[in-house]
Structures are given as C-alpha cells and as structure tokens.
C-alpha cells in the first residue's frame, strides 16, 4: 500500500534560502536533474503498476484456459469483458453503480461525521470517554451483517435501512482511530499552547484538530473500506438493485462472468475511494511524515 501515500515536494526552484546571502539557483543543472528524477520516478511507478495489471490478466487467462477450474465456472478475461459490455449496454451497470454509490456515500458521510465527533469527545474528555466508551466497546464486535435483521425490522428494505447499516459500521471504525489519535496527541503541544494562554476552544481548533489530522485520514480510509463491506451486507439482506444485489441474482443463474464484473466493480470502487481520501487527506496533513 506504500504506493498510495503521496508526499508533497516543493520544486527546488521555489525553496528560498533562509538567509539572504546564499545565491538562488536560477538556471542550474541541479534543478533540472531534480525534475527529471521526479519524472523518472513517476514513470517507473506507473510502469510497475501496469506490469502488475498485465501480469494478473495473463495469469488469469492461463488459469481460465487450463481448465483447472471448470470453464463454465471460471470465465476468461475476455468473456468477463464481454459480460461487462453487455451489462453496460443494458444500463444495469449504471443503475447498480448509482444505487450502491449513493448508499455508500450517504452512509459513509453520516458515519464518518458521527464517528469523528464521538472520537473527539471521548478522546478529549475523560467524562465523555467514561460514558460512551463502554457502549462503543460493546458494539464494536457486533458486525454490520448482524445488524441487518434489526435494520430491516426498523426501516424495512428501503434506502434508510442501507444508510443505517453502512453508517453503523463506519461510526465504529472511524471512532476507534479518531479516539486513539486524539488520546495520543503528544501532551507537549497542548501544554505549550496552554502556556501561551490559548483558550480551550482555540486549543481544540488550532492544536487538537490539526494534531489529529493524520489519524483522521487513516480513520476515513479505513472507514471507507468498512463502508463497502457493510454495503454488501446491506444489499444481500434485501434490495432491488445495487452491485451486491446483482451478485446474488447472478449467482442463482451461475453467471460467473457477471459475478466477476460485480466483484471487479467493488474492487475498483474501493480502491478509488481510498485513493481519493488518501490524496486529499495527505495534502491537508502535508506536514505529517506518515
């Protein structure tokens, strides 16, 4: 996963010397070679990733043709691609994606907001931790899939129930990371800020919040992967559309090509969500070395 952590480098040309005396590199070989090094690294990373993708496709093709697994149950990449195209043409992919993404997005937004807020409360205040801590600790081992029956009883099989299941899983995941992040802020930061006379509200906004930034990014990344797990649980528990719903239907008709398409869709969505959060997040907490 190391490839997903992005770091912000300033081009060497922007770096001003601290003291006025040092000459600024205006048009110099070091600047150019720095740039070409960066470009070289980007190209190499992209090439490596392409190579991995190609290798996987080839391996997949070989396994599928070899017949180790019955050909009817294990489609080749080409067959999968054809399934994808026909699903796309009939509009199934589009409507499933819309349905699933909507559920994940709303559930994640609610869960991440609530989880972050509770994480701050329990991490910052011992009293909150004493009251809420045991409740959350009790809920944490209860997986989203176990909540599906209750959700159906409460909300029926409409959208609300899906949001509830996703949000439930995300709250617990995000809470843990945020709580831990707040609780682990090096005390020296708060101490110093208090020493300079900052009021508690300023300490929360200017010290605790940014100091927790890296943990929040981790929390949201983990939360987004949990959101997709919960989505599958929610859709398998009763839905009329969505990627996981489609997987279940295709499974009944042994349409493995279409099943593969659904699985790949889930994988791509998960990677894309993680990439988005990591990229935006690491930009915001650019000062953090993680």
């Amino acid at each position, binding site marked *: 996963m190391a490839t997903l952590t992005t770091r912000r480098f300033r081009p060497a040309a922007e770096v001003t010397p*601290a003291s006025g005396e040092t000459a600024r590199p205006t048009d110099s070989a070091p600047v150019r070679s720095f740039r070409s090094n960066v470009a070289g690294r980007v190209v190499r990373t992209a090439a490596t990733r392409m190579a991995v993708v190609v290798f996987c496709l080839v391996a997949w093709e070989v396994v599928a043709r070899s017949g180790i697994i019955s050909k009817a149950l294990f489609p080749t990449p080409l067959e999968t691609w054809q399934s994808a195209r026909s699903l796309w043409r009939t509009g199934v992919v589009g409507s499933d994606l819309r349905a699933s993404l909507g559920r994940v997005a709303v559930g994640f937004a609610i869960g991440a907001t609530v989880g972050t807020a509770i994480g701050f409360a329990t991490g910052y205040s011992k009293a909150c931790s004493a009251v809420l801590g045991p409740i959350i600790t009790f809920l944490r081992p209860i997986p989203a899939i176990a909540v599906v029956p209750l959700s159906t009883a409460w909300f029926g099989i409409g959208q609300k129930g899906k949001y509830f299941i996703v949000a439930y899983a995300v709250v617990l995941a995000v809470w843990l990371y945020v709580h831990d992040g707040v609780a682990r802020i090096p005390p020296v930061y708060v101490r110093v800020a208090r020493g300079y006379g900052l009021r508690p509200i300023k300490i929360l906004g200017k010290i605790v919040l*940014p100091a927790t*930034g890296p943990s929040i990014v981790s929390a949201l990344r983990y939360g987004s992967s949990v959101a997709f797990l919960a989505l599958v649980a929610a859709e398998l528990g009763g839905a009329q559309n969505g990627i996981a719903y489609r997987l279940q239907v295709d499974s009944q008709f042994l349409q493995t090509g279409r099943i593969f398409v659904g699985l790949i869709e889930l994988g791509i969505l998960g990677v894309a969500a993680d990439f988005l959060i990591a990229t935006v997040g690491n930009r915001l907490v650019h000062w953090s070395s993680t």
Partner: protein
Amino acid sequence: MTSTADSAMTSNEMTVASHNSAVGGAPRSEAIFLEQASVTYRSKRSGELTVALAATDVTFEAGSFTALLGPTGCGKTTLLNAVAGFVELTSGCVRIGDRKIIKPGPDRAVVLQQYALMPWMTALANVEMALERFQLSRSERAARARSFLESVGLGGAARKYPGEMSGGMQQRVALARAMAAEPSALLMDEPFGALDAITRIAMQRLLMQLWSQTTTTVLFVTHDVNEALDLAERILLMSPGPGRIVADLDLRHSDLRTNALEREKMYQEILGYLLPA
C-alpha cells in the same frame, strides 16, 4: 540537508531589533522565588517515591541569568518545571513577582530541547501563537511575529514548516516564539543540547543578545560546564539523591570571559562539587 548557510549564522544576520511591548511600554521582568519548594514523584507502577527536588529556598533576581548545572537526574528539569507550572509541588511554594505559581502561564515562556513547534504551522504561525493573548489585529499580529523572526535571523523562512527547517532554525523559531510572548521569565531546558557545536555557539550568542535587550529573567538548564560558564551570571550546582542545590556561584564580578586562568580555576571548582572524591 542542513546547508551551512542555514545552520551557521553569520554575524550580520543577528541584528536584533529591540521590541516594545505589544501592549505598550517595555516588557517587564520579575523575580522568581522558591520557598521550601519540594517535588516528590510517585511511580505509577510500583508506588515508589523519588525525591526529585528536596525542600529548596532560592531567589532569582528580576532580569538575572542563572544556569542550573548538574549531572543527569539531579532535578534540574524538575525545578524548571515547577517554575513553569508543569509539575505540582509536594510542599512549599513558587512565586513570580507577587503571584503564586499554580499552572503554566504566558508570563513564563519555556524553550525545550525538542523545540515543541507545531509541525502543522508555518514558522510565522508558530510565533503568532504566542501573540494570541495580546488582542492584536490580524495584520499587527503577523507584522509583529515577522519582526521577531527577523530578530533571530529567520525573516526569509516565515512560510516554512518546521519539517522543512534544520534543527538550528527550528530552535531559533522556538526562541522567537518565546520572546514574542514577552515573558517575565524565560525557562530553557537544555535548549541547545541537540545542536551541532557551531550552531550552538551561534545560538548562545543570539540568546545573549536577546537577553541583554529584554532583561527577561532567564533560567537555563544545562549539563555542559562550559556553556554555563559562557552564559550565566550565576550558576546553581545541583546534585542527585535527593535532587538539591549544592553550590551557588556568583560570576558577576569575575572576569572569566577574558581571564583564562580564572576560568580554569572556576571550572575545576565546579568539577570539585560535581565529582566528589
């Protein structure tokens, strides 16, 4: 990564503009009094008690520069933290001016070995933090912070983040931040301990220059005998088990900085206290 231009300061960089108080007039300085002050730590695991500072009476005159010198574990940090308000006294009291110290406050700025800059703030924002309490307008605050950065030779690094600065630069930002708060007392705990020898000398000179222009009361913790001899008007020698002051040396009327022989004698005398036969 540290270029020589970053860490070794040249003398013309250290033009220190003297600052008026943000609230008008010259910043005040105040004396610090320890009265039968003692600190005993109780280990959280074993419950074992450590007398880190035995009952101590000492006065630091307003505007004085005192070094606390001693081997590791003799209670230097404990004494300093008691004045900073970071540790609770087991008995006695610490006063600054006529106020009893019970918690940290902006009248006492602390500079630590590990800089304690906020990594998510630029150098400028770090210094501005110390100005929060003065109720300045946004632009006044930025201008004032900038002038403190200039006074430590970092006018050009205002937009840098701590992670982009060398250790010496970070410690200069920490010093600028401390001075910007206009403390009555500046409490420094091995502030230059992590710096290379040359940067360290530059920082010592900078500190002396700042101090001579502000007349802040300085407590300076070090375990380097030479650093104490170079900087302080007064040296308190401390010894462990229990942590206490074992000697109080007044250097105001000596000429250690010009008389090498006298300095050597003082050096040996200090070693005599610190390395009992």
